[in-house]
């Protein structure tokens, strides 16, 4: 009896720790989306598809051109940052005064475009980077090295964004705009420029997430659908635009998925997470950390 309990505990602990590691990447994804929502007041439905394009970029840079992973990563981040800025310039900027639903649907159109572009250009094959990182054995528990690396890189990325937002002039302007959209233009801040920078920054975060996810998952045109919805739910659960809420919600979700997957199939972990989300929406409609009106 005691032996069974011991084994069970080790699996449980392993699942908990794997959940935390997964949470790091989810938090990074949520951070980018929250940044854009908080500052520009737009939801990029196609955010996960930007990540997908980034993953393809990594794949081709590393596999076809033989560039080292650590040189390919900054290039990918730069590419997705440019994509983010272009998305803002071409699609969001003309719609800034439109009802929010129209902006959301327009990015839904971009989702179709990016997904089918990948299908047309790269085919529907599953591709992987071919880098197999060792598995870390710790006692009887096994952790994938790739996950650990992603977790650390995600943490570093978040700290860098935090420092940028609090220590630089541009970062301060971004935070100011998220507090009051109208008045900052009168204070001499070029809102168009700030929006563009924010979009590029959001894109860069998607690029970073792409570099990390490509280590763990195969790339295919529909890979965005497997973590896109969960990212939106995390942002809504944390309160759209609320960075700390998004951070906490990412880990809550990751734990639910990881622990749910321990007791049953991985899909049930997702189903549990979705159901948890809907229940939470009714208990705290404005997000985990929101004050009750």
């Amino acid at each position, binding site marked *: 009896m005691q032996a069974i309990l011991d084994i069970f505990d080790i699996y449980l602990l392993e699942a908990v720790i794997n959940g935390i590691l997964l949470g790091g990447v989810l938090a990074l994804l949520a951070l980018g989306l929250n940044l854009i929502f908080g500052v520009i007041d737009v939801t990029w439905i196609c955010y996960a598809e930007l990540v997908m394009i980034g993953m393809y970029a990594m794949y081709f840079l590393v596999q076809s051109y033989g560039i080292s992973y650590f040189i390919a990563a900054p290039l990918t981040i730069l590419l997705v940052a440019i994509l983010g800025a272009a998305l803002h310039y071409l699609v969001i900027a003309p*719609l800034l005064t439109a009802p929010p639903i*129209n902006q959301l649907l327009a990015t839904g159109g971009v989702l179709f*475009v990016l997904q089918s572009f990948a299908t047309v250009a790269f085919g529907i094959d599953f591709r992987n980077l071919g880098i197999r990182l060792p598995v870390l054995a710790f006692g009887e528990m096994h952790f994938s090295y790739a996950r650990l690396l992603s977790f650390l890189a995600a943490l570093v990325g978040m700290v860098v964004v935090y420092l940028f937002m609090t220590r630089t002039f541009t970062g301060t302007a971004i935070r100011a705009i998220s507090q009051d959209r109208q008045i900052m233009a009168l204070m001499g801040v070029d809102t168009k420029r700030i929006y563009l920078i924010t979009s590029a920054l959001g894109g860069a975060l998607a690029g970073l997430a792409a570099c990390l996810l490509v280590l763990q998952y195969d790339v295919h045109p529909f890979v965005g659908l497997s973590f896109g919805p969960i990212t939106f739910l995390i942002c809504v659960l944390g309160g759209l635009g609320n960075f700390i809420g998004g951070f906490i919600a990412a880990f809550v979700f990751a734990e639910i998925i990881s622990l749910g997957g321990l007791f049953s199939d991985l899909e049930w972990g997702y189903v549990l997470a979705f159901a948890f989300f809907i229940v939470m929406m009714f208990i705290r409609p404005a997000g985990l950390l929101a004050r009750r009106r």
Partner: protein
Amino acid sequence: MMGQGRLAAWAIGLAALVVLPFVYRDPYHLHILVLILIWSFAYTSWSMMGRFGLVSLGHGGFMGIGAYVTALLWNHLGWSPWIGIPIGMVAAGALALIVGYPCFRFRITGHYFVLVTLALSGIVLQVITATRDYTGGSLGYTPNRASGNKLWALQFDDKITWYLIALGVWLFGIVVWHWVDRSMARYALEAISEDEDAAAAAGVDVTAEKLKITLLSAVMTALAGAIYCQYQMFITPDTVSGIAVSLQMVFAAIVGGLFVSLGPTFGAVITILLAETLRIGFGTRAVGWDNLVYGVLLVLFIIFLPKGILGSLLDRLKPQRKVPRTHEQEAVQIARPGT
């Protein structure tokens, strides 16, 4: 409002549609027409709440429930679709109420409503995939062929029968659309979509009105899913549920025109013809191209033509018609940014 001329036009158009399959029997073209009619019905169902600013990305979930409940009851319990379809519709309606009531009660609107409903279609897709022992998972599911009475099993081999069924269902959707359009509920919902607080102050029961239209829309979408399943005899989670299907509904309704009764139908004609033309023109190389064109069109339409093709055409034909309602004006302003 509906003059003699318009009534006559509807009657002649309908008569032509009914006679069509007996005159023109090309099976491929009939197949395309059946698909157009079924999807038109689904898009019309979506637009019934979409036109009041209730943008739902959960309708893929309702459609999936309609299709899978009907097929599962037939295969596992041997229940006829005549019983299965109503059960599927009730199930979708119940789900719509369970999710809708708290949403409307707690004033979850705009972005938040879209994302909650997005979660809903995500759940349905994941549940269908996870219960693969019963539903076949992502490999798809086929209702068993009927051995006895075809009518009882709602399985027909000839396209003409299916064409007439689809035509009937589609007509039903259009009639319901007009019924809502002429009801008091329409005015209440338009007031709500413009200003919830003001509508509530004027005595509109916001939660109840929203719930009613959501229920109607969800139940009709489930019916569309069930009919699609019976016609195609093969469903996969990705063709009848999930976020892609939900977005497809939004796309077609917007391209056709959200605020006119035949708008979603027009959207279905355009999208399905586009997909088929590309498929025939380019063969397997066309994989992905149809969605690429859809996506670009969707973005362009939202920026430049938010009232859709049919909506804009009708406006141009009758410019003196009436002052557009405020939420339509809002949408029109997008066409001229900066004004």
